[in-house]
């Protein structure tokens, strides 16, 4: 405790004496904003209207903070802030490099879109039971998980986002939801507990929890084989489960179609990607040598994940469950880049992750709109939408092409990078898996499109009305996200620049380490 009475102690050995720049606060801003606005919403639980306004304002501010952070990191490199002035590695460090800042920015967009969509999707009872507070807290958890530089702190944020997501998934408490929530909750909790076991061993071996410090010490301990490799496998297992990679994907299709569509959409956009982020951070920044050894295993997991996801999507009748499997398929593509480990591959992974966050959210939102119009999510009963709303059909087709990786939308470029990366190292089978899974995805999505839009509406079902006035809000949320995927597809140059830079930073972790420790390389070896 920085007591004024003990001024005889030389604080410079233990504390950061430099004043943080105001811009450094941007690292902590998503956390602070999410918590403050979430707390205000919790206090306003009776006043639904006011709560909604406050929440949307909060989401907007979080997005602005994310944009500010992104620009700052782009211009000035990694932004670091150490909590409570304790010198790293003793204090908890928040460190935003390009990877964290990019993911945080996309998460902010997804969160805002989900919040806007929920305006007309989530009824006031569910809002009173805490839709917006949980959304804000979950977004704060997700964003801060991207930005923290301390592995135990990462665990804490995993738990924060997990418990808020529990709150979201049970909103409404239908039978189906409770069933889905049980499976979601238990399997995710086991996954984070496995992560914690990994952290315990990590601490036992390294004596530190700061990611940069671990990255610094890892090469020296590499020769000492033993627990090091076991820890890496433990993390791979835990985060593959969080990311719903094959064969640990069972929880995702069992639960993602049960909650409110707005909830499914933000889940699809955010949660599994935190697992992917953690894998990238651990295997590229902290244990690059272990990644080299596990590369083949990760590649097999990646190929199987994308194929199983796409095949699963083909076998579903419920539109939302089709999308659930497509989320899994996308995870496979992100892991493919990690498996390759080359800058091209990682760049493809990053771009694909950002693309997938946006497009999967948009698809769920669209599914919500067409499900509401048709009164069902069942493909057997779907049909007749084209007559009611041709523009909606165009929107659906754009998103279907985008998720399948067809030009001219954003799914194409990351897949090009990934295929190129695979062929560069001679992994033709990985490239084949990417292309085949894209093909299967196209079939699954075009089937959804043709059954719900082109087929004539079956006899005896209610006529499809036009989109209601408040239903338009939903459409705007979906449209905004779709616009992003079109822009990134038509004009990919800046997006590829960003993902290339992320990949460069990830393959050269020294910049990250230097940023965290500043000039103080000797600081605090234990």
């Amino acid at each position, binding site marked *: *405790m920085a007591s004024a009475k003990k001024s005889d102690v030389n604080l410079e050995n233990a504390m950061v004496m430099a*004043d*943080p720049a105001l811009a450094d606060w941007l690292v902590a801003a998503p956390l602070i904003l999410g918590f403050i606005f*979430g*707390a205000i*919403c919790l206090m306003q639980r009776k006043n639904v209207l006011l709560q909604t306004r406050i929440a949307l304002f909060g989401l907007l501010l979080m997005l602005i903070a994310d944009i500010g952070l992104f620009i700052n990191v782009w211009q000035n490199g990694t932004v670091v*802030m*150490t909590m*409570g*002035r304790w010198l790293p590695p003793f204090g908890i460090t928040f460190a935003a490099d390009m990877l964290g800042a990019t993911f945080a920015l996309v998460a902010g967009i997804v969160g805002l879109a989900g919040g806007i969509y929920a305006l007309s999707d989530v009824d006031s009872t569910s809002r009173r039971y805490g839709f917006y507070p949980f959304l804000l807290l979950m977004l704060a958890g997700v964003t801060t998980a991207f930005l923290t530089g301390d592995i135990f702190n990462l665990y804490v944020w995993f738990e924060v986002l997990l418990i808020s997501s529990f709150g979201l998934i049970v909103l409404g408490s239908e039978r189906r939801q409770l069933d889905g929530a049980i499976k979601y909750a238990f399997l995710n909790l086991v996954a984070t507990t496995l992560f914690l076991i990994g952290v315990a061993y990590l601490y036992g071996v390294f004596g530190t929890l700061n990611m940069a410090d671990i990255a610094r010490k890892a090469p020296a301990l590499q020769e000492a084989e033993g627990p090091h490799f076991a820890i890496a496998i433990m993390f791979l297992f835990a985060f593959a489960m969080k990311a719903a990679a094959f064969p640990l994907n069972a929880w995702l299709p069992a639960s993602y179609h049960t909650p409110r569509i707005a909830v499914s959409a933000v889940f699809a956009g955010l949660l599994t990607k935190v697992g992917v982020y953690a894998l990238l951070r651990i295997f590229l920044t902290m244990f690059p040598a272990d990644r080299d050894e596990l590369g083949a295993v990760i590649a097999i997991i990646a190929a199987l994940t994308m194929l199983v996801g796409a095949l699963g999507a083909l076998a579903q009748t419920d539109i939302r469950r089709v999308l659930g499997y497509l989320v899994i398929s996308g995870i496979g593509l992100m892991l493919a880049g990690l498996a390759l480990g080359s800058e091209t591959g990682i760049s493809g992974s990053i771009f694909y992750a950002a693309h997938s966050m946006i497009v999967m959210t948009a698809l769920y939102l669209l599914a919500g709109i067409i499900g509401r119009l048709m009164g069902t999510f069942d493909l057997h009963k779907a049909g007749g939408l084209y007559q009611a709303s041709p523009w909606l059909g165009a929107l659906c087709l754009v998103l279907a092409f985008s998720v399948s990786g067809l030009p001219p939308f954003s799914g194409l470029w990351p897949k090009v990078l990934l295929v190129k990366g695979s062929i560069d190292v001679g992994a033709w089978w990985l490239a084949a898996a990417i292309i085949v899974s894209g093909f299967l995805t196209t079939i699954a999505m075009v089937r959804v499109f043709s059954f719900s839009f082109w087929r004539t509406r079956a006899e005896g079902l209610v006529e499809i009305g036009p989109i209601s006035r408040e239903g338009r809000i939903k459409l705007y949320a979906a449209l905004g996200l779709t616009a992003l995927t079109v822009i990134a597809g038509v004009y990919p140059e800046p997006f590829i620049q960003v993902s290339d830079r992320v990949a460069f930073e990830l393959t050269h972790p020294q910049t990250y380490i230097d940023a965290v420790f500043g000039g103080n390389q000797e600081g605090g070896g234990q």
Partner: protein
Amino acid sequence: MRTLIFRTVAPYFTSLMLIYSVFVLLRGHNEPGGGFIGGLIAASALAIYGVACGVSPVRRAIRFHPMAIAGFGLFMAAIAGVMSIFVDVPFLTGLWIYPKVFGVELKLSTTLIFDIGVYLVVLGSITSTALALEERERD
């Protein structure tokens, strides 16, 4: 569970536990104790009251919805962290002041505000869980 003896004793018991919880909270300033454990004691006090006299008297007694209390706690904790922005130190740095009140020096800090926030968060969330469970038992 709702025996006469228990119902008579429970209010006194609850108030004693609540006072003790505040004591534990403030003691955490320098000695073992603190917001989390204090909040747990307070939540169990309310849970006992709920078991003895039913859930709705508890809800009436605490006036605010438990989740709103938790929200206020969260707000306090977040604000306590942000205060350091005004003195140019990083997020969550403990700030201390030593005002003299009636000749006694008080050590006040943002850490204490944070701890009170934790106390309220724990009190609110655990109480709401406990009340939810107790309510269902009677259905």
